[in-house]
């Protein structure tokens, strides 16, 4: 067996026996795994398997949703996220990309400058640097550099999704979570974004939720299969696709023999 570099990296996110429920109804339980720095951790599984709820738990969205609650322990950079001194500072270290691009009703420039402004960056020169750098990292700079003052919502769907990635990167997050980012994006743009993610991996940790098994295969170093609110299996992507799986359900899902 090949020893992969990610396994020697320090643990970025330690998830221990996490369960999530809405109004007392459990949607996810028994989640236990570590995510290492500089790896792309894929989460695959069909709809309603608890993938998105898991992401929402990671950045403490339960605080803004009275119906949502979670048990168990999640450590981010070694600190329990429940005891994180300020939930807003936790969220500013985690970038999130949604299935459908949400361009805030602002210009392209202001979309990317939004979070840095909230964090207190106010000098135009500093913001200019951040905006250019993030748009470049999201492979969008060349396409929009001449129209930074147009509304974000006027960009094409694929451009808007890259805009949200640029926005998610605007606070130099340590972790980037993508929730089925390619649902509303054409294949060419999807490939461009995938290349971006492979690059970003050198600097940050990425959690990639996807219902496309092949996308997980292309990108993820390790992955977990979520099914009906449970984690069926966690493993190294290459090995899992090579057939080294413990659970028959994993094999069926990876082979596409699943509902």
């Amino acid at each position: 067996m090949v020893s992969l570099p990610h396994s020697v990296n320090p643990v970025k996110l330690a998830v221990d026996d996490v369960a999530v429920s809405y109004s007392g109804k459990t949607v996810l339980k028994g989640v236990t795994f570590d995510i290492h720095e500089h790896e792309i951790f894929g989460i695959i599984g069909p709809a309603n398997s608890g993938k998105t709820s898991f992401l929402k738990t990671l950045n403490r969205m339960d605080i803004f949703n009275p119906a949502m609650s979670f048990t168990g322990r999640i450590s981010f950079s070694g600190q329990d996220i429940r005891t994180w001194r300020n939930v807003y500072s936790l969220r500013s270290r985690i970038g999130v990309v949604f299935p459908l691009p949400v361009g805030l009703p602002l210009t392209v420039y202001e979309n990317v400058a939004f979070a840095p402004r909230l964090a207190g960056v106010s000098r135009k020169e500093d913001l200019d640097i951040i905006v250019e750098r993030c748009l470049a990292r999201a492979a969008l700079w060349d396409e929009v550099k001449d129209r930074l003052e147009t509304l974000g919502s006027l960009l094409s769907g694929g451009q808007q999704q890259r805009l949200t990635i640029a926005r998610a990167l605007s606070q130099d997050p340590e972790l980037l979570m993508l929730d089925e980012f390619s649902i509303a994006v054409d294949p060419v743009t999807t490939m461009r974004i995938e290349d971006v993610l492979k690059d970003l991996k050198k600097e940050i940790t990425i959690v990639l939720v996807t219902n496309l098994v092949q996308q997980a295969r292309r990108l993820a170093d390790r992955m977990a299969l979520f099914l009906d609110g449970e984690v069926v299996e966690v493993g190294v992507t290459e090995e899992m696709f090579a057939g080294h799986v413990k659970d028959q359900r994993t094999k069926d899902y990876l082979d596409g023999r699943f509902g």
Partner: protein
Amino acid sequence: MFEASELNIRNRKVQRLFRILFLLMTLLLILPVAIILAILTWKGSSVINLSFLFTSPTEGMTAGGIFPALIGTIWLVSVALLFSVPLGVAAAVYLSEYARDNWFTRTINLAIINLAGVPSIVHALFGVGAFVLFFKFGTCILAASLTLGIMTLPVVIVSTWNALQAVPMAFREACWNMGATKWQTIRRIVLPNSISGILTGIILMVSQTAGETAPIMFTGAAFFLPHLPHSVFDQTMALSLHLFVLATQVPGVPEDLPYGVAFVLIALVMVMNSLSIAFRVYLRGKKKW
């Protein structure tokens, strides 16, 4: 090949019938408004001129102008706005953005609906008891405007709430995920994108406030005053009450005079509404999604 069936033909006839029916209903709605405006313009325009607008009533209010009443109405509406807009918008923001769905929130919502259903004469008596007597403001602009403000609060709250709810939830979630607090999200995204809807509520409130008579007649409006109010603790004349007085209380008023007053009152409301609508159109041009 594409022959219409019996049923197709009948469906089309029924559809036409309903279209005409709804059109007639709409025209019926416009009719009273058109008639009111026509009569007021026809009968009132003869008395309208600059000296009518800018002089005080004379000869026991049977002649002269309406300047103190015009200024009084502007005072009353402005002070009422200063009170009910910040309060109403703040309450709506709380209910829409912060409040959880529990018995407390439901009780508040119920109270707002009930407040909207209270007759204006009851508001007037409340105003007398609370502002004139209990807070010892006396009959003055402040007491009258606060009474008007409380009466129109539900309009401001409900329309602001609707405007806030029209801002997509995804915008809020995107902000929260970036580490924005609820207030930062409201301040930067939610309020700027609901301002035109909030203005709609304020337009409605201005129209209602300028026309109300009952709530002000016991709390701050006077039949006749020879001078203009100097502060919110003075009494004032008001167009709506002046119209009521001319029409019912004063003998020997020339027939056209009340029409002139009514015309000015409606024109005042329409001017204020037009300004707000122009501002809304300007804002909508900048709408970003």
